[in-house]
């Protein structure tokens, strides 16, 4: 199994969810995150005083998938998240040893 993690722009969440559902993904976890990449943050001005806000709001989407689906699913997420502008985010995957469905105790790919 693989854990796909995407840290992307918050307003792309709906497109990504729809794309994942169309792909057949049954569940995902979303958390609000903040951070920066190459785009750095942005500048705000209050009564003439400039503040650099270096952490910008992001969402972090996590999905567990079978190994065979991982590459294709990464492409789906990247396509749905992309705006072409700086700050679109990152998607990566990690190997996962075990997954258990809490209600039934099923293990491995059956738990997905």
């Amino acid at each position, binding site marked *: 199994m693989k854990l796909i993690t995407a840290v992307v722009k918050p307003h792309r969440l709906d497109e990504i969810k729809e794309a994942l559902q169309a792909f057949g993904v049954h569940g995902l976890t979303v958390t609000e995150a903040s951070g920066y990449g190459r785009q750095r943050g942005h500048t*705000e*001005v*209050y*009564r*003439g*005083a*400039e*503040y*650099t*806000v270096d952490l910008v709001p992001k969402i972090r989407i996590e999905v567990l998938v079978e190994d065979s689906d991982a590459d294709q699913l990464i492409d789906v997420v990247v396509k749905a998240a992309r705006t072409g502008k700086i700050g679109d985010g990152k998607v990566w995957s990690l190997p996962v040893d075990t997954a258990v469905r809490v209600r039934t105790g099923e293990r491995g790919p059956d738990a997905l």
Partner: protein
Amino acid sequence: MAPAIFTLAADAPKLDSGNTAFLLLSSALVMLMTPGLAFFYGGMVRVKSALNMLMMSFISLGIITLLWTGYGFSFAFDGDHGGFIGGTDWLGLRDIAPDDLWGATGTPIFAFAAFQLMFAIITPALISGALADRVKFVAWSVFIALWATVVYFPVAHWVWGGGWLMKKGVIDFAGGTAVHINAGAAALGVILVIGKRVGFKRDPMRPHSMPWVMLGAGLLWFGWFGFNAGSEITADGVASTVFINTQIATAAAMIGWLLYERIRHGSFTTLGAASGAVAGLVAITPSCASVSPLGAIAVGVIAGVICAAAVGLKYRFNYDDSLDVVGVHMVGGIVGSLLIGLLATGGVGQDVKGVFYGGGWHQFGVQAVGVFSVLGYSVVVSAILAKAIDLVMGFRVPEEIEVSGIDQAEHAETAYDFSGIGSTGHAAAPAGVGTAASKKVDA
């Protein structure tokens, strides 16, 4: 401000129900400005001190009301002693009958006392913005009680109660000198004593809620019609002129401030709109019964631009006027008070003419005396009071509390519950009604 003439029983004017209704409603409008100010300031501080900022204004509603009842109204408005202070006949608001009228206005003294009380409440509250994040609540409470006693009540008497500035002919229709310069100068005096916030000019101190600021500015704008038009006391043509002038100058100042910052800093900001509106309200306050509607535009634009420039001075001169009380209220008050000397038409509430209407420089000089005497008195006395409080009880909270957040330390509360997870935990039973276990802990 109505002339402080006492008409005794013999041929007393009759109660005027229209004027009385107008004055009572104006009083309620001015009362609303203090909660409005609380939100205006509260939105500008960081989350960790939002409640403290609200409380610094709200406590003024409590403390000043009691002082006003006890001796404030009497000291400010009961007769005159040497041009400096009123008398003692109205201590405790005794010896005032419901039908006793304030001069020739046809309004009960109680209505006038209520109206003036609201001014006495908001003036110390204005100072709080300069002291954000860092003063003990008790020290602040003691400060406003002392400050009202030795600064506001006497200055209100000088300007409106028949005191020396009133006799000299200083025009301060609704409080540019007595309220705004007075509060702004006090703020300057106090911050020079207590010093800067931890991290001033180093840490980002972004406003935590611009919607609060806009809400507060809106409430201030609304209440200010009572502040200015109500200061005529009587519901008449002057009150109406003042009302429209207030709206015009505020609109012009908002636009002036926005244009200044668009040119200087690149954006039209909500904080700029809110601040510009308040700067305009401040500047038109002394001058609203002296200028024409076109003059009100000039007052507004000039105040908006000058105040927008003035709020940057704290970074250059390195004093922490946290929410720009000096830059907006003191500077705006000075602008409005001095512009009377230039723009007074002689045809509105007073017959005094300014330089541009052929009146020469005399009134400008009189206004300058009013401005700088109140400014000087307030800076010096406020600094002395702050120093005394600092020596006796410590004015500031300890540094670690300032950094971790004054709301939790001083009020045992936080403004927002951001997290469902953080809201769990244990609720302690109120004393005396707890379980056996919690009683054991109490014991």
